[in-house]
């Protein structure tokens, strides 16, 4: 049996290494570990938000939220919203990226303009869309009624399933440019000989997309889907400003419940329990997703 012994120089290097990574570790602890532990700790108390007066309740907050139908309905709403808007973002994003990859007129201008929805603030975007959807003065209802498609204004945000569909559409419009940017960047690096070979083999445009383009986009799509799924899952402002979670609680997603618990019902401990549960769900989804995509990548 051999024993590895470090020379004084190696030990000095090791200490220097620790010293050099210490700031990173400290910052990581301050911005990631501390808030996480705080949220976990807070979720074990009953806390009145304005005064922060608290009393220990253990896991009672978790028991209460899991026993309430509200948790499951909010989870379903969150999944419907995330899946709906994410699917549209990916389809629209890839489609638009393919168009912008072609040699079209005003390509540079179009590439700049396509980013517009992503750049404007959510508040402004929501105000614009609320006017578009407005029952009395909205352009959408005006056009539908002018065209004779409806004789009464459509209630886009106050009835189901219109409210969820509207929220999903606005979300897709707002965030699909992110997919466009990422996919377009990858499209520009796909080697042209691959397409030439496919053409020689008699592949048409659709076959070339599925057999060449899509496999080449796979890696970037894995990352995009993961990032956008995380961001959409915890989306708050867009849904809150558009519907406030209504009608009734039909568009009430988990982040909206967290906000309500913390600042409307003043139950910060319960809000922390909701937030921790949300994080746990997201974590499970992400682990499963990464494993699945990694497995497929290995094949």
């Amino acid at each position, binding site marked *: 049996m051999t024993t590895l012994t470090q020379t004084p120089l190696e030990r000095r290097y090791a200490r220097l290494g620790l010293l050099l990574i210490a700031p990173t570790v400290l910052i990581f602890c301050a911005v990631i570990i501390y808030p996480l532990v705080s949220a976990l700790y807070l979720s074990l108390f009953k806390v009145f*938000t*304005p005064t922060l007066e608290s009393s220990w309740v253990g896991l009672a907050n978790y028991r209460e939220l899991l026993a309430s139908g509200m948790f499951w309905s909010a989870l379903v709403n969150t999944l419907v919203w995330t899946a709906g808007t994410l699917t549209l973002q990916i389809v629209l994003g890839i489609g638009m990226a393919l168009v912008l990859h072609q040699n079209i007129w005003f390509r540079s201008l179009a590439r700049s303009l396509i980013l517009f929805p992503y750049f404007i603030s959510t508040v402004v975007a929501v105000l614009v869309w609320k006017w578009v959807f407005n*029952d*009395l003065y909205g352009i959408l209802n005006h056009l539908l009624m002018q065209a004779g498609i409806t004789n009464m*204004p459509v209630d886009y945000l*106050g009835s189901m399933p219109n409210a969820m569909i509207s929220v999903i559409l606005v979300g897709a419009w707002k965030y699909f440019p992110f997919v466009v940017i990422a996919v377009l960047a990858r499209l520009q690096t796909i080697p042209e000989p691959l397409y030439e070979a496919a053409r020689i083999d008699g592949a048409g445009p659709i076959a070339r997309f599925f057999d060449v383009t899509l496999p080449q986009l796979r890696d970037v799509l894995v990352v995009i889907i993961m990032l956008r799924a995380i961001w959409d899952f915890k989306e708050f402002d867009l849904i809150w400003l558009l519907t406030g979670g209504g*009608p009734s609680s039909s568009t009430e997603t988990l982040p909206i419940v967290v906000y309500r618990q*913390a600042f*409307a*019902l003043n139950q910060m401990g319960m809000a922390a329990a909701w937030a921790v549960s949300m994080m746990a769900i997201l974590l499970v989804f992400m682990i499963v997703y990464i494993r699945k995509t990694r497995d497929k990548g290995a094949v």
Partner: protein
Amino acid sequence: MKNTLTFPNGLTRRSMLAGLAAGTAVSALPRRAHAQDVTLRWWSPQGAPAQAEAYRYQIAAFEAVNPGIKVVFETTSDEGYAPQLAAAFASGEVPDIVTHLPSFAVQTYYSNGLVEPMDEVIAAVGADDYYEGANDVFKAADGKFCATGIGNTASDMLWLRRDLMEASGIAEAPKNWDELRAACQTMQKDGIFGAPLPYGQNSMTSLIFIGFIHRAGGSVFTPDLQLAIDSDATRNALEFYKSMRELCPPGATNYSWGESLTAFVSGACATGIYAGRVLANVTAQNPGIADQITCTTYPTMQADIPAWTFNDFPSVFIPAQSKQKEAAKAFAAFLFDPEGYIRQLHAAPGHVLPVLKSISANPTYQANEIIQKYSAEVDLMSSAAAGGFNLGYETSEHASNDKAGEVIASNAIADLVQRVVLNGDNVDTALSDCSKAIEAIMQA
């Protein structure tokens, strides 16, 4: 002719003198308010451009006579103040003075030790100058005043269009729900809807629907604050509210104060449910109907049920965590200085009504064109507001409810309305769930 000496910064002699008086009042307060480099943060949900301009005048007048004190105005909103203040209280980063919040919200904060008693400010303004009982709604369990009123608002008046009534053969304002529904049905034509009642998941729906419960002869709580919402009166109110849905614009399912107001002011609805802001908005935005509008108290289910008007009792209060309490108290008292206060009231004439007798009688206040033109409506709103109530003070027999703010913020009542009216849920189940939600808040 009025003698007005104007200073280079646009302030009049009167405001300068008033400022000096306020400065004197400051020195009478326990600690010096004129400390150097003091910044006061002032929050209010009433931040329309004209009101903001009036506030700027009041701030300039106060700063002119209190060098070293700076006041910064920040707007909040009727739907957003509760979460914003909860976060502010939790972080300790509170505003130094808050105005125009409803009385029930302040009672909640005061009962948790978050608000400073305002007795000194009321004394500085002049307790005798307030209308009798104007501050009763702010009296806390300890006998102190948690806030003082900065105005009265008759928030749920029934607004009518005389021209549409005449065209539909309606001779007089509806006096009960059957008449109101029939009038709305008759006037709903040619692209005009009957009423802009709110059905949204928000505080307006809760606050307005509470009025309907009372106008059906019920209440949310008994006088000793036992839950009483599960009653025949609430069922009747829900039934009427549901029957009115087809007479409201499709988007009323998402309406809050702004949308409801605009629906009447723009002429899209034949009736309206709002406070006096209608007057200024119609005058500015739709003058074509300005000669046709009038208001009355909202009808009750039957003629023998007395009218019930929702007055949110707009308040002034000072958070206990403020580091500039004395300066804030001086500024709170200064807000009632006649010149600035009248400007503030004129910024939304008929909407925020004066709480001081001397102001109501002041010729400058009465000289406003809108107040003169709609004197009958303003007088009616003044008397309705003076006898008005809200969830924190449901009737004169009710104990002060310091959980009312949380009940409203929870949207439990708006959810009841949405479930019954929009989702068609079973009334008993929805009422039972609503009762449980409110009971949980009361027990918390």
